[in-house]
């Protein structure tokens, strides 16, 4: 806790959000953060000083009028607050749960100390307020009235990918009366929200509610369908689609490139989390997809994916009556970890161990090809690199071994290339991300737009939605011009 000190006119302490007990929750996949009730939400909302020039709004990738929605909350006008958020954000219940607010709106909140790497604890808990309002809207079935434009009803737009960017774009277009068909490769929609984010962070009923809303708008979601395989972009246009939005995502796992990485039980975070989240492997054998779980699990990385993987692994250990032994291994220190601060705290509370300033060197296996040990090197921090974070430097001669009968590699993701590989006219950059016009999100192919992680690499849900909105606006403008 930070010392009680008067920062500006604020006197009250932030309202702590209610959470499930750490020991209990670590043995289940139920949601960890329980959220604010009305009284708590109001207490937190009145902490907002309603700055004359609110910096929080600029910190939000989609520019939610944070000041206004918090004001409406203090007036108990939750409906008004909901619509204020919905003007910019289609999925407040999702973003209120997964937004890294401490790096965005809360970081620019007046209560965050200048130059801090992330939001101070005193910063208004904007994300918890958003979640409260989003859940209120969901419970009361508040829906944005669609403003169907008769001039647009004759058009059909295809959306490829049903992750945050795809569903956001689909919603924007459908509300204007455009017929939207979303194509999803997997058997369930949601993209990374479904396969990447565990239910203990984002309960499936929340996601399903938001997806159902799309269906109510008339959006057709076609699962088990790979554009680029079952159908090409040109065929979509031939079938009468007027535009295509690509929300392909960054779903290709990066590996470390070290020895022994292909040993059994060395997982990419994507594989481990897909098995657990999408395929419900934690309920094996009721669900048929297996996942192995080690006695000594090491998760490599310091982002949200690493936290998710470690916390999921720890849960499966506990659910199988094993001693919890899951360690996050990261080359830098906790300050440089890109994960949400809340996830780091939660992981620690649940019993995930942290081994910092350590770099993996080699996985060592047994005679059956299963990983048994991990050889590592100690690191120290050197000069800042291109990301602005201090570069980890391995200390030679500091080799040591740790027990590791399962490892999860969570060191980043790259662009999905199934479609771009077969569509050479779609220009990509050196990372295989799709190149777009920053103003319209249009790609090098006429009438094909893109947004989300396939543009500019791994980002947040809200950033993906921001791009999707921009693309949707450009698509609408173009169709109105036709």
């Amino acid at each position, binding site marked *: 806790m930070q010392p009680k000190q008067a920062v500006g006119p604020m006197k009250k302490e932030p309202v702590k959000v209610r959470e499930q007990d750490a020991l209990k929750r670590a043995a289940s996949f139920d949601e960890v953060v329980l959220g604010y009730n009305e009284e708590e939400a109001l207490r937190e909302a009145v902490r907002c000083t309603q700055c004359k020039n609110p910096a929080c709004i600029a910190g939000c990738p989609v520019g939610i009028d944070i000041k206004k929605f918090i004001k409406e909350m203090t007036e108990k006008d939750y409906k008004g607050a909901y619509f204020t958020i919905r003007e910019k954000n289609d999925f407040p219940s999702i973003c209120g749960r997964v937004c890294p607010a401490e790096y965005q709106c809360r970081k620019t909140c007046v209560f965050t100390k200048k130059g801090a790497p992330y939001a101070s604890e005193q910063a208004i808990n904007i994300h918890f307020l958003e979640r409260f309002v989003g859940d209120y809207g969901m419970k009361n079935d508040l829906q944005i009235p669609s403003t169907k434009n008769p001039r647009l009803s004759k058009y059909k737009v295809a959306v490829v990918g049903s992750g945050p960017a795809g569903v956001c774009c689909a919603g924007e277009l459908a509300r204007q009366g455009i017929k939207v068909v979303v194509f999803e490769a997997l058997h369930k929609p949601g993209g990374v929200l479904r396969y990447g984010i565990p239910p203990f962070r984002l309960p499936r009923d929340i996601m399903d509610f938001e997806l159902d809303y799309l269906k109510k708008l008339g959006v057709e979601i076609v699962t088990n369908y790979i554009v680029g395989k*079952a159908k090409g972009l040109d065929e979509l246009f031939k079938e009468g689609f007027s535009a295509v939005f690509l929300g392909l995502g960054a779903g290709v796992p990066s590996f470390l490139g070290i020895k022994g990485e292909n040993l059994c039980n060395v997982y990419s975070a994507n594989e481990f989390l897909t098995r657990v989240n999408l395929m419900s492997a934690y309920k094996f054998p009721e669900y048929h997809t297996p996942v192995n779980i080690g006695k000594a699990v090491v998760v490599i990385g310091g982002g949200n994916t690493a936290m998710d993987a470690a916390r999921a692994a720890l849960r499966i250990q506990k659910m199988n009556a094993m001693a919890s032994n899951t360690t996050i291994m990261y080359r830098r220190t906790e300050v440089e970890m890109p994960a949400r601060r809340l996830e780091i705290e939660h992981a620690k509370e649940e019993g995930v161990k942290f081994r910092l300033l350590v770099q993996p060197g080699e996985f060592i296996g047994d005679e059956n090809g299963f990983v048994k040990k991990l050889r590592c090197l100690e690191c120290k921090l050197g000069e800042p690199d291109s990301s602005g974070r201090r570069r980890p430097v391995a200390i030679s001669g500091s080799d040591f071994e740790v027990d590791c009968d399962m490892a999860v590699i969570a060191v980043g993701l790259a662009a999905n290339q199934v479609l771009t590989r077969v569509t050479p006219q779609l220009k990509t950059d050196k990372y295989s991300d799709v190149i777009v016009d920053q103003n319209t999100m249009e790609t090098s192919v006429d009438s094909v737009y893109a947004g989300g992680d396939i543009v500019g690499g791994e980002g947040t849900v809200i950033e993906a939605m921001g791009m999707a909105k921009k693309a949707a606006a450009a698509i609408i403008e173009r169709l109105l011009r036709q």
Partner: protein
Amino acid sequence: MKILKKEILADIAGTKVVKLEVSSPDIAKKAQPGQFIALMVSDKGERIPLTIVDADKVSGTITLILQEAGLTTRLLGKMSPGDSLYALVGPLGHATEIKKYGKVVLVGGGVGIAEIYPVAKALKAAGNHVTTILGARTKDLLILEKELKAVSDELLIATDDGSCGRKGFTTDILDETLNKGVCALVYSVGPIPMMRRSAAVTSNYKVKTIVSLNAVMVDATGMCGCCRVTVGGKTLFSCVDGPEFDAHQIDWDEFVKRNRIYEDKEKHVCNLNKL
């Protein structure tokens, strides 16, 4: 995703091979030899890859052939015409490079015979001289003999017990065939030991050899890396970079081990389900 036809191709001594015709017009339209699909039998099922053995653009159906081995294939074997798969996606993976090579030898073992059939058909149509070598434990487990005969210039058979063709291994016949004359390409699909032996045999003759790997997959679209395989010192994904690879470049030891990651769990779940 509806199963339209089902045929039991073989059913002896605990080994059952089933052929399914499934409705899937868009996949049927695009499927090429060498490609595969991923499917789920139920909402609680796992995703498994299966080769597209045949595709009929007109009727909009694809043909799958499977040998009951793990839980999912056994559940598939219990499905009937009229039933629907829970999920079916494809066509996945790269197609076989079909062109005129000259003389080609195809080796199919067990249910792998199903995989070489579309390739043999396409290679024959491209003007190649096709020699097909089929192998099975016993005569009654030999599948697609008639179909392959129709698309091969020469058909040779080996069975473990000698009940059909030669008693012995396909790779013995492969060795003799290569010894007899020049061959431009060997295409081998079957149990891992057979593919591996094929590679060993053909490396003596320096013949380009392609195998189609049956790696463990989850999404089968390049997102999980479960199916990774080392080829020529590089880690590749079977699902999007394969499933076919140069047999001489594969790290077979690693592949054998990676294919057994879930062996214990598979046995456990089959026992539980009394399958």
